[in-house]
């Protein structure tokens, strides 16, 4: 339906525990935010792109889902190019804009970095079913079940909010206040939506309590969240890519620690 709904499929990636996907995306991001240089990002990106074939998405799905990254990467690159820290040979200067050798290489590094972090993160996340993620967080990582299940149940209300929003909009037109300034109308509508969602939320909480949620009994889990060799392989792949990126940057002397 939207850019937010998880995709479904029969490939292995869909059966991998979501917490392993989170861990993998985290590893890759961590390695790439430690340094800002073009080589580490390019290495990671090349290795990742080989793996995208197994990501469980069709080419069309892949580009549809990753649109935000394809927009963000050149934008971030361009901004860095124009306003980034100046160093080396200067090529162009106008007001705050200053294009130099230094800002060019920073821009390339930034754009590649956004792609290398963003693409695998999105590809891993779109194959996550929220219910499976909640199971994983509670059973594998042992996060408090009240928190995890509360959030999961609340997520389901988001779809209802969209319908509420449309009805609120029509109702405001019908009540004669639809001609007001757009910003004022949206603010008042947002407040009304907040009131409605709190009411819905408390009804949902009652329904959950009525089914024994939040009691003292130790909870069992109808769906087992498994963490086995498949999950370890995925995290291993992430670790190898992260290590390769760092190694390449250090070996060829492009490594620059982002802090300090």
């Amino acid at each position: 339906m939207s850019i937010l709904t998880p995709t479904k499929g029969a490939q292995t990636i869909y059966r991998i525990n979501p917490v392993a996907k989170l861990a993998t995306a985290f590893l890759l991001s961590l390695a790439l935010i430690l340094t800002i240089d073009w080589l580490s990002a390019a290495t990671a990106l090349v290795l990742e792109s080989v793996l995208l074939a197994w990501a469980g998405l069709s080419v069309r799905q892949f580009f549809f889902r990753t649109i935000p990254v394809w927009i963000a990467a050149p934008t971030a690159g361009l901004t860095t190019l124009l306003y980034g820290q100046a160093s080396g040979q200067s090529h162009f200067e106008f007001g705050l804009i200053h294009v130099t050798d230094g800002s060019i290489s920073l821009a390339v590094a930034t754009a590649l970095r956004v792609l290398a972090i963003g693409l695998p993160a999105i590809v891993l996340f779109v194959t996550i079913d929220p219910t499976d993620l909640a199971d994983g967080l509670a059973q594998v990582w042992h996060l408090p079940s009240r928190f995890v299940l509360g959030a999961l149940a609340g997520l389901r209300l988001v779809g209802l909010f969209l319908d509420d929003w449309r009805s609120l909009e029509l109702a405001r037109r019908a009540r004669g206040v639809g001609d007001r300034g757009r910003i004022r109308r949206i603010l008042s509508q947002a407040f009304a939506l907040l009131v409605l969602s709190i009411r819905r939320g408390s009804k949902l909480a009652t329904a959950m309590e009525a089914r024994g949620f939040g009691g003292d009994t130790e909870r069992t889990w109808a769906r087992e969240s498994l963490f086995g060799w498949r999950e370890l392989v995925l995290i291993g792949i992430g670790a190898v890519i992260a290590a390769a990126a760092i190694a390449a940057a250090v070996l060829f002397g492009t490594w620059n620690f982002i802090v300090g």
Partner: protein
Amino acid sequence: MTHDRQPPAAVSARGWGWRHASRKAWAVDGLDLDIEPGERVLLLGASGAGKSTLMHALAGVIGGDDEGEQRGELRVAGRDATSARGIAGLVLQDPDSQVILARVGDDVAFGCENLGVPRDEIWRRVAESLDAVGIDLPLDHPTSALSGGQKQRLALAGVLAMQPGLILLDEPTANLDPEGVAEVRDAVARVARTTGATLIVIEHRVEVWRDIVDRVVVLAPGGGVLADGEPDAVLRARGAELSASGVWIPEFPPLVTERRVSWAGERLMDATGLGIGRVRGTRIAGGIDIALDEGKATAIVGPNGAGKSTLALTLAGLLRPAEGAVSATQALAGQLKSTSPITWRSKDLLTRIGTVFQDPEHQFLASTVRDELAVGPRALELSDGDIDARVDALLERLRLDHLSLANPFTLSGGEKRRLSVATVLATRPKMLVLDEPTFGQDSRTWSELVSLLAGLLDEGQSILAVTHDADFVAALADDEIRLS
């Protein structure tokens, strides 16, 4: 811990009362009641008699000391009701806020998980419960794709899987269309037969449950029990009184003021070959011809999902037609240049087309009932004197005067409905569009609403109503448009 089925539970109340933390009056007080294991009870009482409060207390979800104060004693299966979670299972009125998880099987399993039932046993119970309520869908079927009746049956299955000794149903069919009502009623009957659990139902439509229950208990508004006994006897003895307080009883149909005037008024609106859709580019129905006249009532009927509300909102100038055009006559448009209501300004709609939404909460804008009624007149820039006069007249006419300073969101269902109609009448539109105006209403609000609308028709107003309610159609409609 064992996981055997709970035996049917007894209920006993001794001088029990409950007061919400924010209120001065006790919602329930001095209640003495005994229900035997396996009994099936229909709980009646005027709005505000504390029926829902009692149900929440029996289910153990009424909240702790910060939510309110309790006195007397309420026991379920011999235990204090506050610790009765797991013995009693509760199904509530609103289908949307009862679905907890995204997949059918997981949703049914949720209660079992919370009770610590082992995994194999959970899935056995899930299959059994879905079967008992007649839901024959894959376990990973998305719950968002279910109809209202299916959602209520799903909630019932979730309760059943917990194998409770007491099943509590708080107006489970009030928000459903006639097919949904029958689905849920039949599922409950089957469940009551096979499990033998004690059953307590609140519902103001008596005929739905009459054949399933073996006892009727009527709560008194001030506290205590007004009548108690075998259904036919109680309804015979107390029928007139119950009917006056809002309970639907077939032998005592609500009284309505008949329409007196038969109008041959002017045409207000025409549409031919109209296609409708919520979102631009999608058409959910087409080829609709409709004409609306002064002093005439038109009902839009048909199954769920046929586009009834969408059609009404399109004619009301709130949604753009997907094809064809809605065309207002000079009599409706007045001095406006365009005859197409969707192009009118929001303010121009006020005196021409008034729309009452299905969910009153969507159309509330102010923090008091009085201000709510003044929103429309104020947008028309009437003088303060005129605004006060209109608001006062409506407060009295719709019995809202004692609530003029209350927050609209805190009103009861019937009061909210009356207020939502009053807000629209405040700007005196020529045409009134109502989306399911009688949904979930008790018979008192129903007859007030029908009488009010009959009066408006006599005055020459045009009315268009989306409805599932055959009694409403019979009482008011001149024309019927059926979508399929």
